[in-house]
């Protein structure tokens, strides 16, 4: 029917992937959404992807905004920071300047959102290139600690930890929902990893109180 009511898809989450040019944002997104590996490099302007997934038994629609990292295309970053709900900050473990970039991005986000607790996941990509590592793990760990955001080392090439990153950000957003909506559901912690992807013990509590030494996931 022309006016037939289509269902409202479940919860919609808006996540923005940010990071320097060439660190692998698009590759991570393509791996997650389409199980595809892209060898070639084509600087992004902005692309949106929608995908539906289950997080802790809840169906959510995840809208991923893949953004530009290259200098000349970053005109809309402020906009993304304003409208995004959660952020995946990607650097490449082979480039220390890309690490500095996300430190700057984090600062921008908290400034624009005026919120220290914006859901963020830190991602060190290209973990398959361990031999070219130039960002020591310690540095990433330190960020993770001080920002109270989980850190994952991923490889878009080998699909390592790709799912874990996106599921983590979804979970953070859902928990944030609950925290504001339904506080007693916070205790409802479930182990996820049903899908057999890597992902070591992550906790689901919001990074509110206790500092957490266990939030970093590496290979």
């Amino acid at each position, binding site marked *: 029917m022309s006016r037939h009511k289509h269902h409202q898809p479940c919860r919609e989450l808006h996540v923005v992937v940010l990071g320097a040019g060439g660190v692998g944002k698009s590759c991570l997104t393509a791996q*997650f959404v389409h199980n595809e590996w892209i060898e070639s490099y084509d600087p992004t302007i902005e692309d949106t992807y*929608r995908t539906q997934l289950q997080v802790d038994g809840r*169906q959510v629609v995840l809208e991923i905004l893949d953004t530009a990292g290259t200098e000349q295309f970053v005109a809309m970053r402020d906009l993304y920071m304003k409208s995004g709900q959660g952020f995946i900050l990607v650097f490449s473990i082979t480039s220390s300047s890309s690490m500095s970039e996300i430190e700057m991005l984090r600062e921008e986000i908290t400034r624009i959102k*005026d919120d220290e607790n914006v859901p963020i996941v830190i991602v060190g990509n290209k973990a398959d290139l361990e031999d070219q590592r130039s960002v020591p793990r310690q540095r990433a760990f330190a960020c993770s600690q001080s920002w109270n955001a989980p850190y994952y080392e991923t490889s878009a090439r080998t699909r390592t930890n790709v*799912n874990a990153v996106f599921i983590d950000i979804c979970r953070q957003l859902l928990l944030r929902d609950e925290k504001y909506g339904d506080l007693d559901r916070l205790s409802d912690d479930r182990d996820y990893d049903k899908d*057999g992807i890597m992902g070591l013990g992550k906790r689901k509590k919001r990074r509110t109180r206790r500092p957490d030494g266990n939030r970093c996931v590496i290979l």
Partner: protein
Amino acid sequence: MSSPATPNGSQQDLADEQPQAPPVFHNFLRAFYPFHPSYSVSDSSVTLPLSEGDVILVHSIHTNGWADGTLLLTGARGWLPTNYCEAYDPEEMRNLLKALLNFWDLLRSTSVNDSEIFGNQEFMKGIIAGVRCLLERTDCLTRESAIIQRHEGLRRGRKSLLSELSSLVKTAKRLQETQRGMLHSAEDVNDIVDEMILKAFRIVTKGVRFLDVLEEDRSLRAPAAVTVMDTVVEESHVPPTPPADLMGFEEQSNASDVSSRADASQASSDLVLPCMSDVAHAANAPVNKRLSSITTMSASPTSHRLSQNINRLSGISHRVSLAGPPPLSRPQHLVSERLNKSHDAFLSHLGSFIGRLHLQSQSRPELAFAIKLTATSGGDLLAVIDVVCSNTSSSDMLPRARDSMFDRIQDLVSSAGQIIHDAASQEEDVIMQQDNGVLLLAATGCVKAAGECVAKTKWVIERVGDFECEVESGSLGIDLSVLDVPFERRPSVATSVAGSTASQATSVAGSCRTVESCSSGVQRLRTSSTDKPLPELPQVTSPVVDETPDLPPQQESPPNTRPSSLLHDESLSSTVSSVSSLRPTLPPLPKLSTSLLPGEDYSPVEKANQDTDFQSSFQSEPGTVSSAGSSATYHSRDSESSLVSQTSTRATTPDHTMGPKNKPSMSELSNGGSSTQAEEVDDVECKLLEKTYAYELMFNKEGQVTGGSIPALVERLTTHESTPDATFVSTFYLTFRLFCTPVQLAEALIDRFDYVVESPHMAAPVRLRVYNAFKGWLETHWRDETDREALDLIEPFAEHKLSSALPSAGRRLLELAQRVSSEGSLVPRNVSSMGKTNTSIAQYVPAETPHPAVSLSRSQVNALQGWKNGGTMPSVLDFEPLELARQLTVKQMTIFCAILPEELLASEWMKKGGVGAPNVKAMTAFSTDLSNLVAETILQHSEVKKRATVIKQWIKIAHQCFELHNYDGLMAIICSLNSSTISRLRKTWDMVSPKRRDMLRQLQAVVEPSQNNKVLRGRLHDHVPPCLPFLGMYLTDLTFVDIGNPATKQLQSAGCGDGAEENGAGGRTVVNFDKHTRTAKIIGELQRFQIPYRLTEVPELQEWLEAQVVGVRDGDQGNVQVSYYRKSLLLEPREAAPRTPIEGPSGGSGQRTGDLFGWMTRDRGIAPVMV
């Protein structure tokens, strides 16, 4: 909207209505005479005092001429006499006024927690564009413009307007922030929304004032022309400039009676609006109080939003958008609502009918019944349309559409009647397949005609205003008795159903209920209208204004003629119940003072005294409108008024001797400006200078784009101020070829790239997005066949314009263009490579769910092997139902996944034998084959027992399909089993165990097409893939959207200056984007399931399956259905007393109707020859 020329002209418009010129609902009125009711206000309603020049947003107009409106000046809402007002719609203001309407509708109807709407600032664009348009049309866009430079008053007026705008922008930002960040912010969102509405009002008020000043300036500068003025003015549609300035009035009356006037302020107060900063705190509070006091009076204690505070009466015409959610309106009585409901009902009957037609057996009684339901609901729809027709005689556009819809229904009924007669005369129980073709054509014709007719009706309703009405479900005027021959002679739908199946009985019961509730609704309404005569209306005890005995007749109580012509033309339609019984006994409108007539002497003192009376009684009422809010600011108005000349604007203006003429106070105009920081105003100014097509966009209340011109849509696609709207972008890419050529799109994008330079602050993001739009197009949405010609534009653009602005982007786009030009398209646009800005929502499938083990025994493998080596072919009984269902599913899913979105557009699969939709065709062909295979395998056995075994096997296979969520396969098998060819084999079915039959019954329930596949839709609702939905359902939906919605819409009263408006060309014609959004949504739903099953394909079984299907297809000479039916008759000849062999919920007992999807392969509009 037609633009009323002068107060004289528009007064006539309201007062002196000629019967052949139907009333137009004016959204804005302007008081040309003050109205100060002196009677006390009853506890259920509020009248709105007016000052001359006040502009009112009208929500509804009662038949007696009272209008429910909101005074822009204060935000106060109440009843006001329309005969004191004239339509206000000057061309310069049109876009702004229209934007205000949208703004109001959006803000008042949106749930305040809808962060999606407030999250982006899209809803602000209309207002900004409206202000821009006003300034542009008055040549005052830039500060440097000559008029502005010359005229100090205008300069300040402009600045003040801009500062109001900037203030609104700021509040909108605050709302956005409240929404985004702190969900539990202390600040009540409702308050912010109220504040925003008031600010928007204020912007319009300033705009009105600005235009007044400008008009005055114009007339001053052409003093010689004064005598000629009136004619000139009238003819050139220069907007009215009634003596608007209360300031001046104030000044004069100061002399005579200062104190009374001062108290009367709230009505006439105005211009000095509280400056933005303190609106929220100081001024807003009393205003809100006022609003909520109205709310309380109209018995809605729940909310104090501006939106919700008034009851409505029958016999009122409304602004169309009021048909929405305001809780106190009775939308079910509004004609727009009735229209929607009856259209929905009609479509849903047609949908079910079409569903049965191509899926299932149709016996004659069933057909007759379905047609009756359809025709009856069509009649109901026509009845509503007739009501609207009778209220507008402006053109024959609507009657023509109505007639054509009537004709289509008549076609449907008579085709069906013919078919039923033929079948009866041949003593056939069945409807032959070529007949189905005829019926389908007739049914889709109905969908289309209804779509067009409803669209036109809506347009008319918008023009004349929505109104409440009673519609008796009408006698259609089509003789449905043709359908009754020969098994049923009585015309009544209800009785003809008596013998029908349970499900039908229910649906009839349902429809009876509707009718019932409808008529009881009428009764209730009638009773209540007598019991409790319209408490909402003011109890007018005495005329307000001095009466002068010798009024010209047409001014006696002018508006009465208007509404009665609106609602009271019994001769026109028998289906309109007499409105007179519903007409409330309203007080007569207060009579206009003859002081309006030139030369009449009027004493301001007298007037003022009355005002005082009014004022005191008014203010002593605790529940009434309070003037406290604005009187505080009232006194600050008079500082600079003497600067302004006292000359009357126009010689023709009715001489308001009691009041001074137009003298806008410049202090008011500048007042707001001084309180805002200059930079903010600059900021807004900057925004204003943006060239934009925003006023050519239409939104719905959810904030989605529903229509727009191509430049406006492209502008939206490349907007600089929000993150991309995934739905919009994907819909655009998917469907743009339906509303523009690729070359046009390229041109529009390039144009966008060019004109944005005028606005440096947004050039960077917009240009990136233009580049990205091209990039996305070439990379993922390119269609070589159609798009190639656009390369001639894209390549030079990339090479030159883009390269010079963004070198790397230019290079990349050129490279892409060269690649598509050599390779056709870059990626095979099949499912796996989709994703970027796509309609589909990919489903994340957890990695590596193991495939289940193949269920194939050694001996089965051997049997297949033997067959391949020339042995006998194993039969369907030789394999596990589970494995057969899996292999079927794999096969179907492969085809399903290959369906490209463009195959689903524009009913492609029904055109030219479906060449444009190969995979859709393949899918439907396979389903048909599968159905035939079921029949074939059953009918090939002459032993009853054998046949029963095969039936059982298919039931089990169907069950396994169901378990696998393969609804397409399930549907094909069940259809075949339901067909009369199979279902009539009573002896065979007797041998099928009750358990299996029960299983079948449950499966039948799942795919039951009644109520438009309600059961199946429910299941698919949030089904997680893998799942193979029933394709036919999507195709039906897509067909309905495609043929049931016109391709274009009229942009109402926008587009600066399109005057022509009779015959439905009221505004610009723009793309009906809503249609495309719906299409994309359905396609997105379908794409959601384009994910392969994790099942192992067994090549040997696939081969066998293919061979089986091919076998059936080869045997298909001519009409396979007929031969199956004959075979069935041979196997089990007709019994003397036929009875239904199996009772399924669908209860079929007619011949199966052949090629399941044969209807889809026909060209629309061509003679119904089945392929």
